[in-house]
């Protein structure tokens, strides 16, 4: 077990976004998080690396209780990669610098080594020729692949994807999903918030269905997509499929 979440809640003032979520994620497990908008999917994901500070409950990752006040958040985040809907590449750095900045400044990796690793990753995501280009010259799909490479350069144990294809033009969705699928097959522990049902069915080991701040179902995709056990999930699937 890599991630253990107990009774996680998050509220903004009186508005309760997460209403007590408990679950565990095993090492190498790929989880696709789906659900209607406003159900708390992104908030749940962002709690896992404390971009959102939980209101109550506990999250244990590996041996660290990250919700403990004594937790060294920056160190913990180094082990958790995150990919955002809007990429958030650093616009004043080249693709290569985007990828090498964190390893060299945070982990003290030599620039030479970081460059070598970055080129390997760029090759993996099919963008080796874009190493010295600035992000503004890239398409959305290319940007997202660079963002994935940037996260992987820190050699994380867990990867979080927050709607990685939602901001992309349709013809670019596939190139990004293929990269994520490859990553899933390599044994990386991943949680992916997505609206791509086909992708979720093919790539995920487990589907989390969230509604109104609650984890309604956590089941394998075959079972979820053929006969969901909750009525809410069934209604949701009717609408999106």
């Amino acid at each position: 077990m890599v991630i253990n979440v107990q009774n996680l809640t998050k509220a903004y003032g009186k508005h309760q976004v997460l209403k007590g979520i408990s679950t565990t994620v095993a090492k190498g497990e790929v989880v696709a998080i789906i659900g209607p908008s406003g159900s708390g999917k992104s908030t749940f994901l962002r709690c896992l690396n404390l971009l959102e500070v939980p209101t109550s409950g506990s999250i244990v990752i590996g041996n660290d209780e990250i919700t403990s006040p004594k937790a060294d958040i920056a160190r913990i985040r180094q082990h958790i990669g995150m990919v955002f809907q809007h990429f958030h590449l650093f616009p004043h750095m080249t693709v290569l610098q985007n990828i090498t900045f964190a390893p060299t400044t945070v982990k003290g990796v030599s620039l030479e080594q970081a460059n070598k690793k970055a080129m390997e990753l760029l090759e993996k995501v099919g963008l080796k020729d874009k190493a010295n280009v600035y992000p503004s010259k890239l398409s959305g799909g290319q940007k997202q692949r660079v963002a994935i490479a940037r996260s992987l350069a820190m050699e994380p144990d867990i990867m979080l994807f927050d709607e990685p294809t939602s901001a992309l033009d349709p013809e670019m969705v596939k190139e990004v999903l293929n990269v994520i699928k490859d990553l899933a097959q390599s044994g990386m522990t991943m949680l992916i918030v997505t609206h791509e049902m086909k992708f979720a069915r093919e790539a995920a080991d487990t589907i989390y269905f969230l509604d109104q701040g609650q984890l309604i179902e956590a089941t394998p995709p075959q079972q979820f997509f053929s006969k969901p056990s909750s009525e809410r999930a069934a209604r949701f699937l009717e609408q999106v499929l």
Partner: protein
Amino acid sequence: MNKHRLLYVSMLTLVLLMALFGPVGSIAAQEVTGQAAEQTSEQPKKTLIMGTSPDYPPYESVDAKNSGEIIGLDIDIANYILGELGYELKIQSMDFSGLIAALQSGRVDFVMSGMSATEERKQSVDFSEPYYFARNTIVSKAEFGYETLEDLKGKVVGAQLGSIQEAVANEVEGATEVRKLNKIADLIQEINSNRIDAAIVEDAVAIEMTNTSAGLAMNFLPADEADGGYAIAFPKNSPYVAEFNQVIAQMEENGKLDELMQKWFPEAKEADASRGIIDFSVLEGYVPYILKGIGVTLLFTLVSALLGLILGSILSLFKISSIKPLKWFATAYTSVFRGTPLLVQLTLIYYATPQLTGYDIPALLAAGLAFGLNSAAYLSETIRAGIMAVDKGQQEAAMALGIPYSKMMVSIIFPQALRNILPALVNEVVALIKESSLVSVIGVADLMRRADVVRADTFRSFEVLLLVAAIYYVLVLILTSLARALERRLRRGD
């Protein structure tokens, strides 16, 4: 996380202080105005520091055409007296209005600056016996040629601010108005523009005025020895007064004083009527002296811009910080420094620092501080806006990668914020270059100060003002084209 921020902020502050006092300190050390007497002495001599305001030829002025040293009748007398007594002379240049304060705060040992021993001044300082009694004159357009104070009834009378003639002008019966101006050259302009009818000035100055400006005439007023004459000023109870008096008496006897007067006092001669209102040939010989001011102006602008940028960045961090007292401090700071005139801040820092703390702050350091502190108030707002304009996702991406707050700010957020606000920054630096001319009031030898020196020397204003205006304009043009190049470089990512 707050702990990290606090650490980061205090580190930045330390770096700032080092950056500030490192370079500025050494600049200030170079900025020794005036000149020392002969340095070749077998045994170490005691050095006395003399304060003077070198804008009053022939008593004291800057030899702008040659070495840029301070020369004049007062300097020669001081050199002679100190030579007789076996002291070394060091000259400190400052504004006339700051001389008494310099004596009182012990910055200088004595003052010679064509200063009259008035009753009012005797309250605060001691004087030697007078070494010269100037005679007052009326200078006016030759066609009017006013001869007596009675002639000035119903006229507008001018005099130099703070001079002994100002008091005489105040007592002209029936004068419509007494106008007090800073410089002799200003008085000439005002007479030529018919804004004042006549000016009351002392004889040596009047001769220079009529020598350089065709169409002006001078008439002596009856000598009045009650004003005490020009004397050397000392701090109260100074031990030097008696020995100085002895040498002055000796100089009067052996004719040395007369000899020096002969050397320095101008002879009346026919003014060159062919000179037009604007004639750039009067600047001949002065141009190198003025050009040297460019370095001072640029150095000063650079120091204050850097200080403003560093301090402004820290303040902007305070403003976006979640720690309330830091926020309050930054807001109060901006409010005060933006809400009071820069000239007031400059004068306060320069004159109050030595009296409150005993630290004799050099003029250039005081000016750099005042401008830097002031500029920081404006820049902190600009930088804050620049930071707010950076997409919040940038911060989240950096946090998710485990990049600490300080590194994120320095390498991710600030570069993007700076790019956003570059045009505003350039505006600020352009303003600084031009506002830097204010520092001439505390005697920093920048472009404007040098222009003032040349005005005092030539008794003409337009030519040198036009020259420095052109220099400032070229400086700003160069700066803006550099900024454009920088902006292109920063925008290469787009």
